[in-house]
């Protein structure tokens, strides 16, 4: 009888020990899992926000297109109205391509070296990237309009943009939501903090009438349009 009791007690203690060990490892694994899932959740939320914004924009674009189509469908309209619609479409495409000189509210940023580090292509590019991230509508550097095929590169003491040599100080003009652009430049550990570390002299001015000139030329001699 005594032996039985000892054996059963031993058994219960053994099971208890195994369970404690199991519990411990399971809690640990759950913690690790939760960490992974947290990363996944953040990524999913980012992705979801991006697609929601896309769909919102798409709906607005669809409405705009529907209006255009309705206008072209209406056979009772006179030639003059078609002409107006077409002019607007051509103008929008020209603005998008950078072929029109434009005017609007925005920022004028001047940038030059203050210490030993010169202002290089990547610094200008970083600045432009930040502006693009805040939905800038037109940009120029020393009056060279930044368009789809504009390169920004170092060439000795200069920076080449649109195959033109530009010398410092660099003046970057941007038309768009000035608040949004400024706050994105001023982010903690953002572009401006970095520039301060490089000892650049930076001046940012907000202006009502920033004028950004058109691009000189968009070469298309190697392109053939494809019938849609």
């Amino acid at each position, binding site marked *: 009888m005594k032996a039985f009791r000892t054996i059963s007690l031993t058994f219960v203690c053994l099971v*208890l020990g195994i369970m404690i060990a199991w519990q411990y490892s399971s809690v640990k694994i759950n913690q690790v899992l939760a960490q992974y899932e947290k990363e996944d959740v953040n990524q999913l939320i980012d992705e979801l926000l991006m697609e929601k914004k896309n769909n919102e924009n798409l709906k607005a674009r669809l409405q705009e297109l529907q209006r255009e189509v309705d206008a072209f469908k209406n056979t009772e309209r006179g030639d003059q109205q078609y002409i107006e619609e077409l002019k607007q479409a051509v103008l929008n495409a020209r603005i998008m391509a950078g072929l029109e000189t434009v005017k609007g509210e925005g920022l004028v940023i001047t940038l030059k070296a203050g210490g030993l580090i010169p202002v290089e292509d990547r610094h200008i590019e970083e600045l432009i990237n930040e502006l693009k991230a805040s939905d800038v509508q037109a940009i120029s550097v020393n009056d060279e309009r930044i368009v789809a095929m504009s390169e920004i590169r170092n060439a000795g003491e200069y920076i080449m943009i649109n195959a033109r040599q530009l010398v410092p100080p660099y003046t970057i003009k941007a038309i768009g939501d000035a608040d949004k652009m400024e706050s994105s430049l001023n982010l903690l550990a953002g572009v401006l903090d970095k520039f301060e570390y490089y000892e650049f002299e930076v001046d940012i001015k907000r202006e009502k009438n920033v004028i950004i000139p058109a691009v000189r030329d968009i070469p298309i001699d190697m392109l053939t349009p494809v019938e849609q």
Partner: protein
Amino acid sequence: MNKGHRGMLFLIFILFGILVSMQFRSIVRSDSDETISIRELAAELEYERAEKARLIEQLNNLEAEREQLLKNIGERLNNNEIDWLLRTRNSEFFKAGLTPVKGKGIVIVMEDAPEIGELRVEEYIIHDYDINEILDELKANGAQAISVNGERVVTTTKPVCAGPTIIVNNNRYPPPYVIQAIGDPDILYEAINSMPTVAFMRLTGIRIDVSKSEEIVIDRYHPYKSLNEMFKDMEVVKGEGF
């Protein structure tokens, strides 16, 4: 029965009971909170993507309808000014990247290194600045049209943003990353292959295949956003009569 033994057994069983219930709760919880919110998010994302596909189809249909209507108007009205505007519209859309184009050029296919060696993990992965540097090199060497995974690079295209996937024109693409560029194939080929960045990436096992092509077709940019909205804060200074 020994009293001491009983008391001990009692204690042991209480502990046992608590442990069983804790274990059970921990399993149930891990299956509910986080997992379900992930499932919900994934389902919502799935829905938004389906919605996007539907909207894009509508967009393409409307755009096709508009082009057809414009053609009809041109034929029906026989008005010189309208004919001229239609021609101008074609040429300006062409320059803005709103027309699909073809021409000679190069194709670059990039993929992360298949295995990690002795260097830091980051050295075996393609970064956004690598892609952006390649794009800049192409532009500087006279590329006239570029696409990244089929997305046309236009004035409003933001710099490519890379993680395990890349985002171009607000759409996400997994590797391999395919860059197409129309321009002089010899010049572009030479330029990309002599980039130090490319040489270093190849050294770590990142795949970068560059090939010349006699005919590359690059799709037009599909604006997913209202053009009036995109440029709403600007006015044209001295238009050429448009």
